[in-house]
């Protein structure tokens, strides 16, 4: 089933937009992050601690607990990603609207952490989704999350969105789906049986 969707792109005026507009938009984007907390394990508790009164990350502009991926622009993956959970993470990341950012919180999300040798742990969430900031620790202190958010805000301040970057994020180097590329290599088993000479494909 082929779906006709347009290629990812930025709005048309982005190239002609003067620099002050870009600065203002970057400023608005980095100080109004709405975080979709993907709390999976112990790091989620540290995330919650960072959202509470003592280490409040709301003073950085980060609003906690978006109701769903479609209302969020920052995803904080905090905790061990098991192989069973991995498709859900990918799907929820896909369902976030552009522009979106990911913070990988804790060593399990960075690289598998203490479970690097497990049969069922995804060794780092960056095998699934593109990560912007890694916060190391097991678990990282809430202050580390605050520093990670500030680092992300610095990154957004210096960022310049472009159509090329968005397309590259969605594997823009791939112009066809894998099915279209591999289809000529496969033959229909029925056709293979009826052909006398066993045509090579």
């Amino acid at each position, binding site marked *: 089933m082929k779906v006709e969707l347009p290629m990812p792109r930025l*709005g048309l005026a982005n190239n002609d937009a003067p620099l002050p507009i870009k600065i203002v938009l970057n400023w608005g984007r980095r100080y109004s992050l709405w975080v979709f907390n993907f709390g999976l394990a112990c790091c989620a508790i540290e995330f919650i601690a960072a959202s509470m009164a003592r280490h409040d990350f709301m003073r950085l502009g980060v609003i906690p607990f978006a109701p769903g991926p479609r209302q969020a622009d920052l995803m904080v993956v905090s905790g061990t990603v098991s192989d069973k959970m991995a498709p859900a993470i990918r799907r*929820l990341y896909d369902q976030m609207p552009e522009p979106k950012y990911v913070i990988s919180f804790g060593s399990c999300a960075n690289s598998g952490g203490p479970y690097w040798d497990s049969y069922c742990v995804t060794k780092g969430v960056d095998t699934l989704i593109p990560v912007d900031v890694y916060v190391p620790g097991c678990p990282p202190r809430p202050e580390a999350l605050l520093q990670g958010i500030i680092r992300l805000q610095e990154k957004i301040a210096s960022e310049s969105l472009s159509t090329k970057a968005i397309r590259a994020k969605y594997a823009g180097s791939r112009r066809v789906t894998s099915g279209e590329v591999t289809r000529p290599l496969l033959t229909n088993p029925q056709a293979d049986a009826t052909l006398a000479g066993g045509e090579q494909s």
Partner: protein
Amino acid sequence: MSVSGHRGSLDRALLTLTRLSGVSPYLTVGGVVLAGVLLFAAAMGARLVLAPRAPTVMKLTTYECGVDPVGEGWAQTNVRYFLYAFLYVVFAVDAVFLFPWATVIRSSDLGRASLVEMAIFICVLLVGLAHAARRGLLRWV
């Protein structure tokens, strides 16, 4: 405190402005509405020319906590919850109709007639409320 005698400072300012400039008040209201529409159009236009757009197949699927959605989007509610709607009509819609009454109750030509009409209106609603009370719906659960 009569509602007609006290106008907020914003109301007074707009009214004074309207009277000073000599235009009808409806024009002022129209101007405010137009300003709102223009603001909305500007915001949506800015989004159209500046926002990134990256639709993918997975992004357009229905959200169901990261898994494939199953079943339909419609869920049936038990019909007994109509009682919430019933009590809402009795209290809230009733209150909405009481507000305009407060603006005419002091006037000489409409005051007494409006009192009788509103008494009939409230009695009709009270019949519904009495029915709800008789059914035990106003008891705290």
